[in-house]
């Protein structure tokens, strides 16, 4: 007891300084508020930390046998884990990004993700009409992540818990965190190390994305130059031994109709050009799965779709008899 006495005295002195000093008191109050606010964040994402997920994903090089590419519909709609169950001992990754356009920089980066030594190199291109535009108003997430400094990537990977705790929270988020009953719906996000970002919304929301896409196609249409460049890559890849598949990413019926009408995308022409360039076009019913916002698939539908996609690829491979059977 006596031994502790000087320490207690010192602690008391420090505490009294903190209590008397306005600056320290304010810091202390801010600290309490920060911890409280960080803890009440609504709809906290599950799985891998978001910051670590993106920093790792943008750093992938020489990493996978099968790369699935595309925009946010691919990001949320294709589960590599589910595909792997059908495709066997191949590492499959989802290389989708939000607002992603098929520009040369992205296509080069996707090729870099393939393992150099792999004898089953495959690129699966998830096509949406918007990803074939050159929308000037869009700075895609891929381009933004590419601009991250080495220091940012290091922090996001190694201090992910801390960086996530301090992640941006809007005023609305803060209010919903404090009063969860106010939320009309809950969005669940789960980050997977294989690149999939699973979304589910309970209850599923209105088809809000339709309005947004109507505006998007008012300002831009599918670009022939982007398609031509994509086809150049498809023929370059197939010539170098990479197997290239393409498919139209599923969404809701209204979105399919809207995009057929406004985007300038013609699936039949695109599929023909794709096959001509050496790729393999996979026909999938684009309206057979559930979307929660009019554009992106619910996680359950994404799993079902990923299974169907992998099965179609597998069947094609069986037909061409190049790949051995899976156990």
């Amino acid at each position: 007891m006596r031994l502790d006495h000087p320490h207690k005295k010192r602690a008391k002195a420090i505490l009294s300084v903190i209590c008397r000093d306005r600056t320290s008191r304010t810091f202390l109050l801010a600290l309490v508020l920060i911890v409280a606010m960080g803890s009440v964040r609504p709809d906290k994402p599950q799985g891998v930390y978001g910051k670590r997920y993106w920093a790792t994903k943008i750093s992938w090089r020489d990493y996978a046998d099968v790369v699935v590419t595309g925009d946010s519909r691919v990001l949320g709609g294709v589960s590599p884990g589910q595909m792997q169950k059908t495709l066997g001992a191949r590492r499959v990754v989802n290389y989708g990004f939000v607002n992603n356009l098929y520009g040369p920089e992205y296509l080069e980066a996707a090729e870099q993700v393939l393992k150099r030594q792999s004898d089953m190199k495959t690129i699966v291109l998830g096509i949406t009409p918007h990803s074939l535009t050159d929308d000037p108003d869009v700075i895609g997430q891929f381009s933004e992540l590419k601009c991250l400094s080495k220091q940012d990537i290091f922090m996001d990977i190694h201090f992910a818990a801390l960086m996530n705790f301090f992640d941006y929270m809007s005023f609305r988020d803060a209010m919903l965190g404090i009063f969860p009953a106010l939320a009309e719906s809950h969005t669940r996000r789960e980050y997977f190390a294989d690149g999939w970002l699973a979304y589910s919304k309970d209850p599923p929301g209105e088809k809000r994305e339709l309005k947004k896409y109507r505006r998007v196609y008012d300002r831009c249409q599918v670009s022939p130059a982007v398609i031509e460049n994509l086809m150049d890559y498809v023929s370059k890849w197939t010539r170098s031994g990479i197997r290239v598949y393409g498919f139209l990413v599923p969404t809701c019926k209204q979105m399919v109709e809207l995009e057929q009408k406004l985007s300038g995308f013609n699936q039949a022409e695109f599929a023909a050009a794709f096959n001509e360039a050496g790729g393999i076009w996979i026909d999938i019913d684009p309206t057979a799965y559930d979307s929660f916002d009019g554009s992106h698939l619910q996680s359950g539908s994404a799993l079902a779709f990923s299974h169907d996609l992998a099965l179609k690829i597998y069947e094609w491979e069986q037909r061409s008899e190049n790949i051995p059977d899976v156990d």
Partner: protein
Amino acid sequence: MQFNSIVFIIFAALFFSLWVVFRRRNNVRWVYLVTASFVFYGWWDWRFLFLIMASGLIDFFAGLGMERFPRHRKLMLVLSIVGNVGSLAIFKYLDFGINNVNWILQSLGIETHVPAANLILPIGISFYTFQSMSYTIDIYRGQLHPTRNIFHFFAYLSLFPQLVAGPIVRARDLLPQLRSVKPLSEQQRWDGLKLIVFGFFKKVVVADTLAIAVNTAFGANTPTNSCSYWWTIMIMFAFQIYCDFSGYSDIARGLGKWMGYEFPVNFNNPYIASSFREFWQRWHISLSTWFRDYVYIPLGGSRRGKVHGYMAMWLTMLLSGLWHGAAWHFIVWAAMHALYLSVERLTNWPKRLATLPAGRHFATLAVFLLTVLAWVFFRAGTFSQATAVFRIMLNPAIMNYAVADKLVDNNAINVLLIMMGSQLFFHFGWDRSQWATSTSRVSAALESVFVAFLILTCVFMHAPSNTFIYFQF
């Protein structure tokens, strides 16, 4: 190293932990200040430390030379000015000059093309060269004794809080402060904290949020064809640049207070000015007074008659525009302000308007809107983009309200409304009201809670990080 980075927060925590120990030890303090400041500056690119050292050494020895050889004072001054202006000319204005020479040659039909130098602009060069020049000019004028200790000089020149974006501090104000060691009072600590927190709030919450909308607008290949849209965007930019720059100054002043030093106030609610003269007394005060003391007054100011006064004012303003950036659109921005000031001097319209009922409010609004109009030339990437936006803003026939969708989707409008509300708070003098100035325990407690909430906002509601705009100058 940027204030709004984790690296800086670690740096500041380390610096202030050791500062408590070193500030009382006379020689160690100077070495510590210079070392810390060089680490801060060298974090961007260590090679530019040689430039700041070379520029500083010229002025340090020029100052000593003026005292030692009084008959050659002028020569020493010329040496100092040539050194500083020379480094500015090479790093900042060389490519601008080359581009103009190429344009003239092309206009004359001569097919020679001078290649651009493409040098990297050292961060904060315009600030520290001006600070360094004021040191030698003050010695030349007999207003300052040169310091004999090189660490004293470099502590003044490179003091990290204000090194890269001001406020531009005069040696006669800062050197005596650096020499004295007073215990830090609780009030100083509190004032420092408030300034730092307000500064961060202005930068990471307000300026960076507004930057998203402004950058999208100016990043589009063709400007959106709507007068109302561009007025909204430009008002956003007016607050973005104000909060970005004054936020930096506030943080610098707050850090200075924690070190025990006072830096001059750099911004005093410029958008509530009711005349352009008043605007320039409230905007970037340390630069405005620098130009007044070292350019405008030496040119004769308004003492040599009206015409000469106008010429001095125009030249000072144009040089100030050129100081901001080596491009014609900065010069046009400065020329617009010179024109505003000229019209104001000629007609004295703000004072006349102020005599009418609510006239002062109209004058403030007019000054603000004209300032917003001039910002177009400051923000635009190119001269042609500036003129295109300018034309749209001046054509009220193009009122496309549909594009409002572009703005409603983001937080920028909320932030803009908060900033406009705060300006009205100052404009109507509510900051001087009894409840705002009360020193009661309740008021103090409420103020602490307010500052704690601002810290919370900075931590969670900050927009994606952007470099401070004035770093490019």
